């Protein structure tokens, strides 16, 4: 059912945890299943220096969180804002249809965290 990439990211999720005194914190709760993701950012010169996440959710949600974190570390804020849910799912080698919504959590929570950063540093 899950691709090898999903299984890999689920089994060994990258960047789990929280960042103390994060520059931005965002959160997203899935409207369809109630699962929840929290993203912490360290930003320097418009570049995402570090990302950490905490996820309460299914295997696809955890793998998406991990994949998202890998995709954006070192990227500009704009690049991170351009990251779509579909890109996260694609990077995981696809998700089964009933699990597509799970990848939404990852990009959405990231964007919330960036928004939070931009607001507090506006």
């Amino acid at each position, binding site marked *: 059912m899950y691709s090898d990439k999903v299984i890999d990211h689920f089994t060994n999720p990258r960047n789990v945890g929280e960042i103390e005194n994060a520059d931005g914190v965002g*959160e997203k709760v899935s409207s369809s299943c109630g699962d929840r993701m929290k993203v912490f950012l360290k930003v320097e010169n418009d570049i995402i220096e570090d990302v950490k996440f905490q996820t309460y959710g299914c295997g696809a949600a*955890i793998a998406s969180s991990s994949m998202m974190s890998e995709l954006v570390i070192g990227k500009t804020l704009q690049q991170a804002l351009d990251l779509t849910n579909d890109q996260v799912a694609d990077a995981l080698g696809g998700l089964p249809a009933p699990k597509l919504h799970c990848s939404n959590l990852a990009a959405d929570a990231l964007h919330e965290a960036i928004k939070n950063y931009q607001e507090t540093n506006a």
Partner: protein
Amino acid sequence: MKRIYMDNNATTAVRPEVMEAMLPFYKEHFGNPSSVHWAGRETGAALEAAREKVAKLINCAPAEVVFTSCGSEGDNLAIKGVADAYRDRGNHIITTAVEHPAVLNSCKYLEKHGFEVTYLPVDGHGMLDVSSLEAAITDKTILISVMWANNETGTLFPIEKIGAVARKHKICFHTDAVQAIGRVPVDVDAAQVDLLAISGHKIGAPKGVGALYVRKGVRLTPLVHGGHQERNRRAGTHNLPGIVGLGVACELADADLRNTAQRLSAMRDRLEQGLLAAIPESQVNGHPTMRLPNTLNISFNYIEGEAVLLFLDMQGIAASSGSACMSDLEGQSHVIDAMGVDPMMANSAIRFGLGYDNTEADVDQVLEILPNIVKKLRDMSPFYHE
């Protein structure tokens, strides 16, 4: 990696004795039991021998056994069949909120066709209050359908008491005994049950066969119309090998019911105690004592069930989730929901269903692996850190 199967409430492996008994009926003795020639006679006799074995397990007359293709079909036949046959007497059906979808969705279908259905609630242990069932009866009530044992929690309903109430009010009483059969003693006479559905693949018979007990005198509109099979109650060429298998599985269940129940409940209790002790903020869902001997439904706060199952699966352990996130996106289980369990607890509900093949070593293995999985997932969970 050793594979451990602890999902015997979902389905079981065919038992070796069952397999052996079925094998001659595929290629050698393959006649249609309705045929009058040699090929039909040899299978016709096997059909009736199997019927007797099923009847013996549940203490009824062989003629009261109708072979079906699965538990769901039996539930549908019982509920829609009685509803149609007794429509002139009334249009009210009583069931519970925690029935299997085969019962619930049959009832929902009937609601679209002029029937009214009362879905009785359960308490925090998943237990039903018989006096509120009796209070729900009206003069339009034609059917009570209450499961013998719940598939998700293993909670056992007081079937004998419900049977007495139904009999007192002269209302047909159907019970879905798919999970109960072969695990606890089932006696349709003592329980005053009128219809009782069983499924082969939950007791070591193959998938594709089941039976519905229909008490003599109970009228029933067929679900599958056609030929004269099963005394006009279920048409279609008999699944002879499956039926032979069901017969043998019933015979085996009859013979080792008490031993198996004792052995499995001892293992189940050790698993339950071990997990509760090793994992703080965990809880058992279901009745503490009135429960199937093989079933443990347990929740671990702060984490989600599918993730737990995936990690178990990656280590070779097959268990299942009440919430079935994959197949039912509406979220958590209607059973755990009806028990009023806190949603986050409910979301992590994991069901272990032990079976003949499980060993103490299997329990050890789960006790070794599962606490670490929970710890890992809790470390990841935002709720755990708040």
